[in-house]
């Protein structure tokens, strides 16, 4: 289990043990979706957002 900082809110995110590069996790504090861009040490970047379309 490794840790890395959330790019949005700065809180530390504990990553699941078997997480791999490219997987998406969310910050347990602010909820931002984060892409795992590195392991050992773990590194996170903002995930491409699937913007919701409200269609008006």
């Amino acid at each position: 289990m490794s840790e890395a900082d959330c790019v949005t809110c700065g809180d530390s995110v504990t990553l699941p043990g078997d997480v791999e590069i490219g997987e998406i996790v969310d910050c347990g504090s602010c909820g931002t979706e984060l892409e795992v861009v590195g392991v050992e040490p773990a590194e996170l970047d903002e995930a491409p957002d699937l913007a919701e379309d409200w269609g008006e």
Partner: protein
Amino acid sequence: MTLAASVVGASGFAGGELLRLLSAHPEFEVVQATSREYENHTVGSVHPNLRELDLRFTDPTDLDSVDALFTATPHGVSMENVQSYLAAADTLVDLSADFRLGSEAAYDEWYDGHSAPAYLDSATYALPELGRDGLEDADIVASGGCNATATMLALKPLVDAGLLTPEDQIVADLKVGSSEGGAGGGAASSHPERSGVVRPYAPTGHRHEAEIEEQLGLSLSFTVHAVDMVRGAAATCHTFPTGGDGGIETPDLWGAYRDAYEDEPFVRLVAGGSGVYRYPEPKSVAGTNLAEVGFAADGERVVAFAAIDNVMKGAAGQAVHAANIAFGLEETAGLDQQGLHPVGSP
């Protein structure tokens, strides 16, 4: 004693409710919560009421050993995986229809057959108000269907009292909320299409008839309507009992219903009285494991009512209740949630 428990299908509505109950339960500890779609995401990202829970979804094919495994998956999944589920857990508590009926033949008649019929004998139907026999130490606990639960709770006292016989005419007219459809939903469950409806969605031949027939020995006609609420199932059972000797009066009915339920911690009788709330209503029990049950006499007809929260008494609450019995715990452990007043459309 702390019992280890996991939930398969934890991103769904019934699964999320199991997490809510088990995480606050004095005797259980949640080990895993599975979701294929949300693997690695926090449980709170799907269930906003559980944001404080420090838990992430895991893959359902990678299960740790636990005391109790709760499965809240669509029909077909638990029969397919029953062997691996039982390998991971002492007790499997299944919320789907996969182990509710007693025989392969019944699955052939009402569903598309059964892929693991050998396990049907290890399963015990789990609506405790119908009887606790076999629940203690059961291998597979088969939690009842929500609409069947409401209907059977309304009717059981009439059967027990010998008023209602297998030959009698019974029509069960149900009104249910949108959470019965699960988190998946389709076009019909979008907010614009589903709001404000009184929509006959299963006008005839609902599969819950099978469960009721097996459990109560009654055959009945079922019609289910979608109405504008999220949680809740209300059964109005129009019966024409011939088992009594002559007309059935209100005091007879009070007697029958009290006999059936006076020791039941999760049944509340509501029949007549004064004020705004005179008969069972789903909104009075929303969020709780309570069933409101009541009746009205009308000449040869007895109308029997029951109202439950389909996600609680109709699913997760009933399952935890049964698990409490299976593990020899206090029956009400973890199930003391109170209802709200006033409350809108929970």
